[in-house]
């Protein structure tokens, strides 16, 4: 008799990435059909789905003179464009040239041209993200010296020309950022969340002396753009996050009045930001912009959490931590969050790992023997 309740079966496929050093980031394009990887070997690679579940390497090039930290795709409306940022203090914009519509299988490697090199930063550029497409072609970078830079391509046809629109000093080291993807420009002004990985001891002092007006020990800052003043201003600092932040991500908005922000810090946090109407926002003279609520804090990784990511609809959150696990979190209908799956590294058994070739077959993942799961029948 078969199992009736074997829910959540997963299968996996192994791809041999062939980077000469550690991989730092993997990013899918808008459709999930292309994948870009970047590594400490200073190379960026682009992989294309062959339509049958397999992945083909279609481009590989040396992109920077230092470790490439992050790679990100622009909306396909702007063409096949990626941005990278690196330890070499630059961020770069790359565009694929040639007919991208023709299927990759009959062609060899694709050509990616460097359209622009953004050299404003004096320290390592730690993160780079394209803005939501309804704002035009925007790019934001952040660097280890704590400066957020927002660039705009005024002419989307000309990716060589980027103007530095805003430079926002934060005075703390910034490790990651995320755009709020809300499409409703009327109710939600353009919004960015940035996370700091500044160690706590120095930060406390730095904040007190340099930033008295917004004295706050939090590590997550919210910036919003005001149409009237044409400036980005810090509208909130999340006091609930006190530990260094490694990653953060806004969930898709889905027409909600509030925003959900996932934060990777010493645990996985999900924070709800509810904008407060202007009239009722005055509190002790200072404007309080958001009602902030930590809706979930998962300690399950028992260690530092490095990455968080939402699926397309924002129903599943993946997190990875120092415990060698990737966990999936899902919101149940009563808005409670539950862990639905854990992906674990098999404990090293001593023998050397078998060499792997890129394969197109998915194999079902073995579930760990768990006495709580008795087979039925």
């Amino acid at each position, binding site marked *: 008799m078969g199992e009736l309740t074997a829910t959540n079966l997963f299968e996996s496929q192994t*791809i041999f*990435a062939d980077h000469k050093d550690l991989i730092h980031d993997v*990013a899918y394009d808008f459709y999930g059909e292309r994948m870009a990887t970047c590594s400490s070997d200073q190379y960026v690679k682009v992989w294309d789905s062959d339509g049958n579940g397999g992945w083909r390497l279609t481009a590989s090039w040396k992109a920077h003179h230092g470790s490439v930290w992050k790679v990100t795709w622009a909306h396909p409306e702007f063409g096949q464009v990626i941005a990278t940022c690196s*330890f070499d203090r630059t961020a770069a914009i790359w565009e694929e040239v040639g007919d991208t519509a023709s299927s990759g299988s009959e062609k060899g490697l694709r050509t990616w041209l460097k359209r622009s090199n953004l050299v404003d930063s004096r320290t390592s550029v730690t993160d780079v993200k394209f803005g939501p497409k309804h704002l035009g072609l925007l790019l934001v970078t952040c660097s280890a010296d704590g400066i957020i830079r927002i660039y705009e391509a005024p002419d989307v046809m000309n990716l060589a020309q980027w103007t530095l629109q805003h430079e926002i000093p934060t005075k703390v080291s910034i490790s990651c950022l995320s755009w709020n993807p809300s499409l409703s420009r009327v109710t939600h002004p353009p919004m960015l969340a940035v996370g700091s990985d500044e160690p706590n001891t120095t930060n406390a002092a730095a904040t007190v002396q340099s930033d008295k007006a917004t004295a706050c020990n939090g590590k997550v800052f919210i910036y919003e753009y005001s149409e009237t003043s044409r400036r980005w201003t810090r509208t909130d600092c999340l006091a609930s996050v006190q530990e260094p932040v490694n990653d953060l991500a806004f969930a898709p908005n889905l027409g909600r009045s509030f925003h959900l922000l996932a934060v990777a810090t010493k645990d996985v946090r999900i924070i709800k930001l509810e904008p407060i109407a202007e009239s009722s926002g005055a509190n002790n003279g200072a404007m309080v912009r958001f009602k902030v609520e930590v809706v979930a804090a998962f300690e399950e990784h028992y260690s530092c959490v490095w*990455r968080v990511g939402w699926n397309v609809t924002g129903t599943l959150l993946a997190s990875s931590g120092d415990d060698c696990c990737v966990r999936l979190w899902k919101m149940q*209908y009563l808005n409670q969050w539950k862990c639905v*799956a854990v992906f674990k590294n098999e404990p090293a058994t001593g023998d050397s790992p078998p060499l792997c070739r890129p394969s197109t077959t998915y194999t079902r993942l073995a579930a760990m023997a768990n006495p709580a799961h008795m087979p039925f029948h």
Partner: protein
Amino acid sequence: MNTSNFGLEPLRGKASAPAKTFILPDKCVSKHFGCAWGQGNKFTIYPRSQTVNKSTPKALDNRLFNVRQDVLLFTPILRKLVNESNGTFLSLQKAAEASKTNDNQVEFLKLSRQFRSIIRVCTEGLQEAASKEEDGLAKNSLQSYITIFYSIECIWHLCEILFIDNIPGDIVLPYLLEWVRFHFPCHEQTAAGLLEACERGSEENAEYWDTVVGMVVQGRVDVARALLKLHSAGESNEFKLVDNSLRSMPVYSVYGGISTGEFTISWKHWQAECRSKLSSRVLASQPNLELIMRIIIGDYTAFESIRSKYSSWFDILGGWVLFTAPWSRRHELGAAAAACAGMAPAPRSHLDDMVRALLEGDLHQVIHEVQQISDNGWFATHLTDILYHCGKLKVLDKHQTNVTSRLRDSLILEYGSLLMEHKSLWSVGLSYLASCPPEGPRRAELLLERMPVETEAKAMRVIAEAKKHGLTSVVSSVSRCVCARAQAGGRLGGALCWAARALVAGAARAARACLTQYAARAALPAQDLLLTAGSAMLLSDTLLFLGKYCDFHRLYKSREFKKAGQLLVSLITSKIAPDYFWETLLLDTLPLLESDEPVFTSNDTYEIMLCLELRSSSLEGEKADLMRLALARNLARTSLAEGDGTDEGGQ
């Protein structure tokens, strides 16, 4: 499986059990991972390190793991189930809409039966496929699908009896017996065989007594009596006594003209009679007949003794209710279920839990259990939806607020989103999402605009579906992306066409690309489109200009030089032409200036001269001189001609 706090555990999907742990393959040596989401439930796990030291570790792990959910519903053989149930689901939504004004219980029952017949067809298909399948592994998985859908049908049927069907007088027994007979047919074939052979002395058959008892337990009293007659001692007093007892058993019928009270009295009287016959020990010599008598007086120990002959307690549930409380109403079955389930210390199966929860009327728990079936939520979604529409589902959270609709919505959203991942079932998924506002359409937007559009035909299909559900943002987003791709591929006509569809500023970009290309290579793309574009032309100045310019070409080609000339002059004087196009525009006047018949009036010529001087930078010296010459000559001859004209007019 969580059973300890039965019924108390609030519904949280798979929450009660700890999350499953999966092991990454190939003995990945890395300690740290990153993760990135792709489309749908696909994501990638990659080894990474946070340390930025220069020394490269010896054992460098460089593999990516693409992980995706294994979705049973995407098995080709189950496609029909997904498609057909979608049709029924949509009819149900319509029926629910209609039932707001009038009671529609009959319609719901019809649709519930429709669902069940879809499941049954599916199970039959699976059985057929399994019997043909040679490969052991594939056969195994088909078998497990059969188990899954068989259980689903069984639960759905019981649900239908208990919550959807309109049972007269609420007396559930006949329906319950029908359910048992249908889903747990036991001894039926033996009984039919014995009756067909119709030989005295049938007790020779090893299964004879089991069959007779089985028929009694299933409530098929007539069959049992017929079988008893086939016993070689069938004419003896003992047999006659039992036969008599079985024959005289009162059967309740709502339309029988007697009240439940009266029926209860006659029933109790009949059982007392049976009990006295039993205690008179006349049957002592026939232990099997004695067993039958003990069963029909509802003796717990008798049922307990036969329990081991059946694989589950469902088999005897019908008999137990029949011989202990035949007047049971729908909501009174919990105790019977508990009694039957308690007869043997069998390990509880998942089906047990579901049936128990159903009979206890704990729908909350039922849905909780149903969600754990690995059918990717097909059953949970459709069952919850129909129960919700029938008004039978009440789920309260810890603050006692009614969250039923949230539960239903979340299941439908989840199911719809899942189907959106499939390359041909996505439109089905879309219909689920669209039926569940406000979040459904928002999710549909996100998923639909991320639908890979490899071909124009696919793009058209996506757009058609988006329009059907009023997702205008998707229409423009998809058109823009296809437009951008066509343009990158140098197919400017296509780009223009998609830009017009998108009704967006992207059109300006495409139009500009067209003009640039024309200025460089002189071939205007998509002329037919531009000439018939209509109001779409108003999207941007550049596009409008391109359209007008195209129209000029048409007029010129059809040798309507006067009209062409007028249009060209208006294009020049309106000054909407982009800078890079001035040269082309001015040079276009040359052949008209040089034509035999004067085309431009003297005023036009002045205007052109003015523009030429204002834009002198856009023309090279030699070309400008040529223009000036042509303009001067044209001015001369038109001035003369016009002078004549006014004179003539004056005469």
